[in-house]
């Protein structure tokens, strides 16, 4: 499907030839670096049949933490940001599993708290990060297509793909998502799995946020809708089922890439930001419809309804066969 989208966008872009160039591939990968990890975190939570809404908040919070603590030593900043992500994710996971709470309730609370903490830490302003050289280094093109940021993201995706496919943890995650109770009976420590998933989601979003802030040489409280919609769309386009238990990191990567390609293409074609929003929103609606449990049932009902409404052919004299209607 990724290939289809690339072809489609390239065609739309037509003869201008901006699209199929290394520069565009680079910008696609840069967008991928921004959205990829968030989508991975959100996708993982979807795999266990939960929904981590706090991902967007963690990105901004981690970015702020990284910038604030990393002035002298960028590694310290990243470590602090990752610690915050780990703690935030784990706390939410623990609250969710041990109190048997709905993940949306907890993660909305988490989102508010993270966003609020970001506001408090940044004093509601953009904070600039004095290491311009680091920012440039993070975003410098390697081989024309990747950058340090996107390379790290790609590496993490590959790692997660291996974990999901070949380790017991991966299998446990899918089992927990597919049938929580059944897995628990079968011996899977479902509570630990959920806590682990949310902790991982927190760490991934924190890493994404920290790298983003370093790359921009600034941290700012940013709009929520910017990240949540594409991340969710990416995960579901990538085949993560909303009822849990199905999906894999490579699929998520593909889904995110589709969105990044689309966004890059729109950028190259000179579309303004609202087109991005409408496009992302429409894709998300289409995906939500396609993944809806009752879709096939309703379509069948509609088709049967139409058939039933068709006028019954009249008997003609001389037609002796019995017609069963």
């Amino acid at each position, binding site marked *: 499907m990724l290939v289809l989208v690339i072809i489609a966008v390239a065609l739309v872009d037509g003869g201008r030839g901006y699209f199929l160039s290394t520069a565009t591939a680079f910008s696609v990968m840069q967008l991928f670096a921004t959205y990829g990890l968030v989508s991975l975190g959100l996708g993982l939570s979807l795999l266990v049949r939960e*929904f981590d809404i706090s991902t967007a908040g963690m990105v901004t919070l981690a970015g702020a933490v990284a910038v604030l603590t990393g002035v002298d030593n960028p590694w310290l900043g990243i470590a602090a940001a990752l610690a915050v992500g780990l703690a935030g994710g784990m706390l939410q996971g623990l609250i969710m599993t041990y109190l*048997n709470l709905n993940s949306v309730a907890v993660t909305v*609370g988490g*989102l508010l708290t993270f966003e609020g903490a970001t*506001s408090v830490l940044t004093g*509601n302003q953009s904070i600039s990060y004095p290491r311009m050289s680091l920012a440039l280094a993070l975003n410098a093109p390697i081989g024309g297509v990747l950058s340090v940021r996107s390379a790290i993201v790609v590496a993490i995706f590959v790692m997660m793909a291996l974990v999901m496919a070949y380790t017991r943890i991966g299998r446990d995650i899918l089992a927990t998502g597919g049938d929580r109770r059944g897995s628990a009976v079968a011996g899977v420590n479902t509570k630990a799995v959920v806590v682990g998933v949310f902790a991982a989601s927190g760490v991934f979003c924190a890493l994404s946020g920290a790298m983003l802030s370093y790359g921009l040489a600034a941290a700012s409280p940013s709009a929520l*809708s910017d990240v949540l919609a594409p991340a969710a769309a990416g995960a579901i386009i990538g085949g993560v089922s909303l009822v849990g238990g199905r999906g894999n990191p490579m699929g998520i990567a593909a889904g995110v890439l589709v969105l990044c390609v689309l966004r890059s293409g729109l950028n190259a074609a000179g579309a303004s930001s609202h087109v991005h929003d409408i496009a992302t929103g429409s894709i998300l609606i289409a995906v*939500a419809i396609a993944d809806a449990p009752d879709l096939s049932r309703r379509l069948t009902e509609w088709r049967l309804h139409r058939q039933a409404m068709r006028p019954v052919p009249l008997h003609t004299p001389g037609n002796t066969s019995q017609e069963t209607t």
Partner: protein
Amino acid sequence: MNAVAQPAVNAVPPNGRRFRLRRISALTLVRGVGAIAILAWALTTPGFLSRLSLFSLLTSISFVGCVAIGMTFITMSGNIMSLALGATVSAASIVFTASLGAGVIAAAAIALLFAGLLTAAQGALVGFLRANPILVSIAALACILGFADLLTGGQRIYPGDEGFALFRSRPWGLPFGTLVFLAAVVIGQIILSATRIGREIMMVGSNRRAAETTGINTPAAVIWAYGIAGVATGLAGILLAARYGSGDMDIGSGYEYRAIAAVLVGGNAIQGGAGSVWRSGVGVVVLAAIEMALRLRGFDDQWQYFFTGLVMLAVVMLQASVARR
């Protein structure tokens, strides 16, 4: 009424009636003590009881309150929340301001209808296809923001002529918005508890399959829930437009989170089927009081989200752990 605490209404608990009474008391006790403690803390804040801060409190209650009333219907129908309500508030404020040329009443009607239909459309996807409500709301959010940006160019819409005199009035010494909010709470409560559609919404939220088997038209109930939510949200948009004298897309940002926080703090069950509009009203008042008290004690606006998130988490956790006992 305290359906969250009682798993089965007619089952005879081991210790007979005494056991059940003790369970009810625990939860209500916690809620009662909590509410009294918070109110006491708020009231002892210097400056809280001044006319200025009380008016400011009442005004902010009316805005968030209307959205919270709407959110209650969505939550009660089993669909957790809608992330698009904030953008709907903004869109309604724009529609209202733009239609003022036709007179205040007509403009209000148009804005309410617009918001109601916009949200009902989301309800159709969720109701007919059982599409994931969070996802649909994220998609709607992106689309609403995108279209609004497209149509308004990101600018503020100013009214053709001033029709706000009605809104600035203070009947019986209370801000007009507060009276609107109170009326909305009463009407909302009546709809939810005393009309057939309200009861159907509650049953769908409580157990969708059982409701279907009983013959309830579940898609219709969900659409109605979303539609009513949209109207309530539109109301908030109108009040905000009147308050600020203009309509723009930032006006409603963040309201969906404050609304769901209010719904949950008030004691409604996030999975739906149990709760009332009264409870959301209480939640709104409690959160607004906390906000006001914090502000008066020197915490800037940045802390608002943070504390709202913490309070929401605390309440949700507390209710869950007490109910489990």
